[in-house]
Structures are given as structure tokens and as C-alpha cells.
């Protein structure tokens, strides 16, 4: 076995109020994909930031090729061969691929002007290594997400990186493209490059990683060869307890019809959508990017207008022109982007919860902060929201807890129909299980839930019935109990259009 590329030994790092890393050790071999797993707040990002020179450790050391290094900044880490690709893609969309790959290191001619021909040639060589036949002059804005992700990797490699840090590289990719990225990673492995791969997604880690290290509460819980560990064991280590059932049991019986959608059509977006939702039922909508699932949800709650078709709530035909109307009829809508569309990050938790029901928290037009605090407190307890108090600014909570706050703000209104776009996006496993159980509990109490998720396992596990959407049309319906990921993938890709086409 060859000597490790990177060794982190007994590293500690504290921030005011938290001990983010406790005696964590980590090792990366050449040609290895080493996955780093753990819930949000487990210390993955802190460790990444130490390796990439953003933070200095309080104690412990970092060695590269066996030599101890004291990284002062990311620039120095780059010089030592550490390349980073972070969650938020950091490319400039208005510039070409070549300009992005060589941001301030473009080859120059005499006099300091950029040697464009050489710049494009060098970029083309780098892209060719990954079978990317794109013109280096293409603007990044015109590339799809996968290609951008690869350009990002190429950018890191152009600095002769031998250690590549990838933070959730597939989070923005459609499921069909993941394999393409894995191809690229395999080539890098073959060249002896070591890859640290941060991900929540266990199946992906099982598919691409050689070893994995689990962190929990700032400590290393274990390092395993992927071949010798099961998904259940990984989850157990991440969460710190045994999770017997990832998904709650399905509905045994359905109630009356809550929502009926007939031939709903929005120009250039979706067409002829028909389905029904019953009390006690959870419907999942599967599809790939561009299937227009989120647009459908937005139209259901009156955010976007429709041109034809009808929405019937408990037998009453409604004509929605604004979200307020939909909410007054007992609907709730949880958008996909909780930070930009769902929450008021600067405001305290309790004000985030009361926003949908200000009338219930006021008398004679005056707010009742005491009631607001008390009701919020009951949600904090019921949903196990981890927060120092209801006065906490929501922007400081973790993703899972923010998601629970967003749910709470609707539960205050006791909605009949919950419309949810990605119920657990960016939420760690523990909170995920809790949110799934909660949604099932709401259904059992008589609510209907309709959700979109980009994770097939979540759709299969949580839903009673699955609708498949392809390019703005419903192409199939499958009972979740019999669905498989392969089947959903096939249907979502538009290959099979044989199952019952709902409601037509």
C-alpha cells in the first residue's frame, strides 16, 4: 500500500460555544475516493475547511506526503496540490469556460495581454481528458449543471491538484447525470488522485467510494472499507441510534376526496394534469429536472396562474388567483428553497411560525407575543426543533431544524392539504426520519399530502401513490408499495408510457 497523500492527526477546532472537531484523524490514499459522512453539524465542513486552509486547527496536525504543513490560506493549500469544489458552484456565469478555468492564471504574451489562443488550447486539452467536447469559448451560463460541475473540477485540476475535495457534488445534478460524474471521478482515481467525497447520499457513496469515515458531533465514529459496511450501519453511526424503520407505514385506508384536479394546463409549462387526493393519502410526484413538477405545485396553490382546467377542493370548484386564497381554503405550501422562499432568516423562530396565522396571534389588531411564544414552544417540543429558544434567529438553525420551522409555520393553521416541494432537501438523516413520520401522522389525522422529491427512495418510501411527470405531462401512476427505483427512472425518462394515464 502506498503512503498516504494526506494525513490529519488528532485535530481539534473550537468556535465560541461549540467544540466543532474533537481529536479527529483522517487519512487519504492516492487513487482513493474517501467519503466523509455525517449529519449537518457533525463537523464535515469544518474538517474540509481545515484541509483547504480556511481555518487553522487549534491542535493536531495536517501532513501532505508525510510532511507537516501549516496552512495559512486557501492559496497555499492550492499550491500544495489541494483542489476544492464546494457546494455552491463558484463559476462566473457570464465568462467563458476557459476564463473560468484560468481565472487569474491565464497565459499571457509579452506586455501582459492574455494569449487567448494558448488559453483556449490549454483548456481544450483539459476538457478532452473528460470527453467534454465543448468549445472553451462557451459561456458557463449556457452549460448544464453536470458540465458546470465538471468544469469546476477541471478548474481545480488545472492547478495540478492531487487531492480533490468535493462537497456534495451531486446535490445539483439530475439523477441521470450522476453516473457521468462518477466516470470522471474514476478517471481521476486511475491517475492517482485522492478524492475526499462529502455526501449525504448513501447509495452514491456505496457506488463510488473505497472507504468512508463517519463523523458525529465533531468526533470520528468510524472508518470503514465500503465493501465491509451496510447502509443501515452507516445510518446508525451517523445518527447515533438505531433507526429501525426509515419510513413510516403506509396508509391502511383513505378518507373522502379532498382535492380533484382536472385537465389543469399552464401555457408552455404543463398540460392536461388530472388526479385526485384523498384524506389520509400521501402522493409523491416523481420526475427528472425539467419535468415541471415544481411548476405544477405552484399552480396548485395559486402562485402561478393556469389557462385552463379546474381545481376542486372538497367538491367545490375554486378559481385561485393568489396564494392567500389557496391558504384560506386550507392549503399549505412549502417551497423547495426554504432560505429564499420559505423562511425569514433574520427574524426569530416564533415570528417565523406565527406568520401564516397572524390573526390567531392577535386581539383587536394587537399582536400577543406571549401567545406567540407559547404556541411556538409547543411546536419546538412536538417537532424536536433543536434551538436555544423560540427567540433564536432562524438563520442560525441547522437545515433540518429550519425545515421543521417551515413545517410548523403551516401546521399552526392546521391545513387540510399540504403541498410540499422537496420535504427534506438538505436535511440530515435523523431529521428526515422525523419529518417523514410527522407527515404520515398528519395524513393519519385526515390531511392530504402531495409532494415532489428528487430522491426516488424518498418518493417510494413516503408516498402511498406515485405520479410520474415527464415534460409537463403526467405519464403514469404507480402504487408506491410496488414501485422500484428502476421503474421510476424508466418512466421518468419517458421510455414507458403504458401504465394507466391518470384520469384521462
Amino acid at each position, binding site marked *: 500500500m502506498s503512503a498516504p497523500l494526506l494525513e490529519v492527526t488528532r485535530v481539534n477546532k473550537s468556535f465560541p460555544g461549540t467544540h466543532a472537531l474533537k481529536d479527529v484523524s483522517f487519512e487519504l490514499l492516492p487513487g482513493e475516493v474517501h467519503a466523509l459522512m455525517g449529519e449537518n453539524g457533525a463537523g464535515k465542513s469544518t474538517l474540509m475547511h481545515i484541509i483547504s486552509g480556511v481555518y487553522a486547527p487549534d491542535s493536531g496536525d495536517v501532513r501532505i506526503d508525510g510532511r507537516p504543513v501549516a496552512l495559512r490560506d486557501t492559496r497555499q493549500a492550492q499550491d500544495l496540490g489541494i483542489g476544492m469544489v464546494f457546494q455552491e458552484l463558484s463559476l462566473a456565469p457570464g465568462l467563458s469556460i476557459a476564463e473560468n478555468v484560468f481565472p487569474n492564471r491565464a497565459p499571457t504574451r509579452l506586455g501582459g495581454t492574455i494569449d487567448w489562443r494558448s488559453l483556449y488550447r490549454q483548456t481544450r486539452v483539459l476538457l478532452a481528458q473528460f470527453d467534454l467536447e465543448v468549445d472553451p469559448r462557451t459561456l458557463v451560463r449556457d452549460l448544464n449543471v453536470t458540465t458546470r460541475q465538471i468544469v469546476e473540477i477541471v478548474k481545480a485540476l488545472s492547478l495540478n491538484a492531487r487531492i480533490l475535495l468535493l462537497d456534495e457534488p451531486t446535490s445539483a445534478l439530475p439523477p441521470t447525470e450522476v453516473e457521468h460524474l462518477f466516470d470522471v471521478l474514476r478517471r481521476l482515481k486511475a491517475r492517482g488522485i485522492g478524492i475526499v467525497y462529502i455526501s449525504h447520499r448513501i447509495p452514491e457513496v456505496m457506488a463510488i467510494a473505497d472507504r468512508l469515515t463517519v463523523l458525529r458531533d465533531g468526533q470520528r465514529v468510524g472508518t470503514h472499507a465500503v465493501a465491509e459496511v451496510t447502509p443501515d450501519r452507516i445510518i446508525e453511526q451517523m445518527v447515533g441510534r438505531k433507526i429501525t424503520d426509515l419510513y413510516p407505514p403506509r396508509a391502511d385506508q383513505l378518507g373522502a376526496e379532498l382535492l380533484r384536479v382536472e385537465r389543469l394546463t399552464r401555457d408552455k409549462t404543463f398540460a392536461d394534469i388530472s388526479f385526485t387526493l384523498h384524506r389520509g393519502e400521501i402522493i409523491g410526484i416523481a420526475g427528472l429536472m425539467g419535468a415541471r413538477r415544481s411548476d405544477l405545485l405552484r399552480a396548485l396553490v395559486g*402562485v402561478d396562474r393556469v389557462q385552463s382546467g379546474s381545481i376542486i377542493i372538497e367538491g367545490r370548484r375554486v378559481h385561485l388567483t*393568489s*396564494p*392567500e386564497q389557496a*391558504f*384560506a381554503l386550507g392549503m399549505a*405550501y412549502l*417551497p423547495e428553497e426554504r432560505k*429564499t*422562499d*420559505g*423562511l*425569514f*432568516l*433574520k*427574524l*426569530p423562530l416564533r*415570528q417565523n411560525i406565527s*406568520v*401564516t396565522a*397572524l*390573526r390567531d*396571534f*392577535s386581539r383587536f*389588531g*394587537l*399582536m400577543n*407575543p*406571549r401567545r*406567540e*411564544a*407559547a404556541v411556538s*414552544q409547543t411546536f419546538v417540543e412536538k417537532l424536536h426543533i433543536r434551538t*436555544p*429558544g*423560540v*427567540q*433564536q*434567529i432562524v438563520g*442560525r438553525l441547522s437545515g433540518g431544524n429550519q425545515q421543521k420551522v417551515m413545517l410548523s*409555520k403551516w401546521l399552526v393553521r392546521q391545513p387540510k392539504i399540504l403541498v410540499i416541494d422537496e420535504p427534506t432537501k438538505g436535511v440530515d438523516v435523523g431529521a428526515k426520519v422525523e419529518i417523514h413520520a410527522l407527515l404520515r401522522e398528519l395524513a393519519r389525522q385526515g390531511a392530504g399530502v402531495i409532494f415532489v422529491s428528487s430522491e426516488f427512495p424518498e418518493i417510494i418510501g413516503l408516498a402511498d401513490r406515485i405520479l410520474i411527470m415527464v415534460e409537463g405531462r403526467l405519464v403514469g401512476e404507480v402504487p408506491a408499495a410496488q414501485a422500484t427505483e428502476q421503474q421510476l427512472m424508466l418512466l421518468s425518462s419517458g421510455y414507458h408510457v403504458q401504465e394507466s394515464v391518470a384520469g384521462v
Partner: protein
Amino acid sequence: MAEKSSAAPLSPAQPGERHWWTSALRRFIGTRELPLLVLILLVVVFMANRNPNFLTIANFRAMAVGFTPTAIIAVGMVILLVAGGFDLSVGAVLALSGTVVARMVLDDVEQPLAVLLVLVMGGLIGAVNGLLVTKVRINPLVATLGTLSIARGIAQVMTEGVSISGLPPSFGRVGGEQIANVPYMVLIMLVIVVVGDLALRHTRFLRQAYYVGSNENAARLSGIAVDRFRIFAYVLTATLAALAGIVLASRLMAGTPTAAQGLELQVLAGAVIGGASLTGGEGTVLGAFLGIVFIGIISNVMTMEAVSIFWQQAVTGAILIAAVAFDMLVRRRRV
């Protein structure tokens, strides 16, 4: 749980069991009003010892009369800022209102009716601002810069650039008379500030300002009528600007088309010094009021110390930058 339900709804109280003095200090710095109040008192104590003419009823009355129009407008402006809006036209609306009310009074329109009509005119200008910003989606800076020029221009055309004077003495009561040493106009201003502060803190309706301003999308998707609220805030601000114009005309016994040049910047500076954020979601009426009092006191001090009036504007700018810089530093440390 460190829960303080009696605290003002939007003061970011810090939870956690630290020493009482650190949490006290945090809460002190966490609000903008208290440090500002302490600063104002320090200046007052300092000046009282330095200049015997400072701490006198006459001086304080002059100061209060001086910043009354600014403070009246600030009540609307801070609500607008909290809701993520912005209005540059207030100074021009003030001038236009002053000239229009003076013209009407000279033309023998009943005074209460004239006042009412001018307030409605102010509201209409605000509605135009609001509609331009929310429905036509023009940037508030551009939209209100436009109405600023239009209002100022109309005032000039109406008066041909000359103040309208010769108003009947009865029109000067609000601006000239007083009760227990407090001029009526100052009294009106104080009532508006107190009512505005309590309303922004406690009413359900104005609570929406914080939601709209902190995250417009989330507010809309939580069932808040975002556009309607913003338009209301523009109408309120412009109506208060019209009221300030009437009050000032009453004090000067004239409608002056060139009155209150640059007043919009004073109002904004005061609100921001008092903790309002130009990106929305933050601010209180009390803070904005104290900000304006602070600016008022500083320029009074400079006048007493015989600093050139031309320097005063520069100092206001320096205070504004210092206040925002202080805020950034404190905030960076807290996160």
C-alpha cells in the same frame, strides 16, 4: 429556556446562561435605541457644562422645532424601510404640499378643508410611488427620484420660484403657538412618533412590514399581500411628508417651493443611524426618532461652537457612516 415574551417583539434577545453582565451588555448593544440614547445624553451633559446657553428651554425648543418636519416624515420612512422600500421624494412632496396649502389658504379655501386636500394629495403621490415600484417594478430609487423632480418642478411652476406669503395669522397657530413651552407642532410630532412606535411594535397590520422586508418571496408564499402592504407604506410616508409640509408652512407663514432641499437624506440618515437597514426587515420608529434627534443635537452643538454651517452636512455624513460601520462590526462579532 431563555424566553422573554415581554420584550419588544423584534429586539434580538440573546438566549443562554452567561454572566448577567455579558448578557446585559449584549442586549444593550443588541438594540440600537439604548446606545444611541446614552450617546445623546452624554453629548447633552458635556454641552451643558461647556456652554450655559445649551441646556435652556429656548435652545431645546428651537432644536425640536427644527427637526419636527424631519421626524414626522421619519415615522413613515422607517416603516417603509422595514418593508424593504425607499422614498427619495419626501422633501419635494413637503415643499409641494407647503406651497399648495398656502395657495389654497390665500384663495380662501376653508383651512381644515385645505389641509385635508393636501394630505390626500400627498397620499396620491405616495400611491403613485407605490404603484410604480410594485406593479411597474421600477427600482424605488429611480421611481421616487422621478416623483421628486416632478413634485419639485410643479411647486416651482406654481409659484414661479417665489415663496407664497401673506397668509392669515390664523394659519400660523400650529407652527407658532405653544402650550406649556411645547410648540403645537412639536406636540403633533411627538404624538405621531409615539403612536408610530407602538403601532410598529405591536399591531398585527404593521408586523407585516418586517415579513415583507426580510423576505419578500417568503412573505408572499406565507399569504401576505406584499404589494398592497408596500403601497400602503408609500402612501403613509408621502402623507406624512405632506403633513410636515403643512406644519412647516404654518411655522414659516409661507409656502416655499425650495423648502427642505436634501431633507430626504436627513430622514434616511436618521433612520439608518437609528438601526433601520436599507435592505429591509430591520428598524424601529423610536430608533429613527433618536437618530434624528442625534443629528439635530450635533448640528445645534456645531452652531453653538460656531462651526461653519457648511461643515454640518459633512459631519452628518460622517456620523451616518460611523453608525453603520459600528453596526457591521458588532454584527460580525455576534455571528
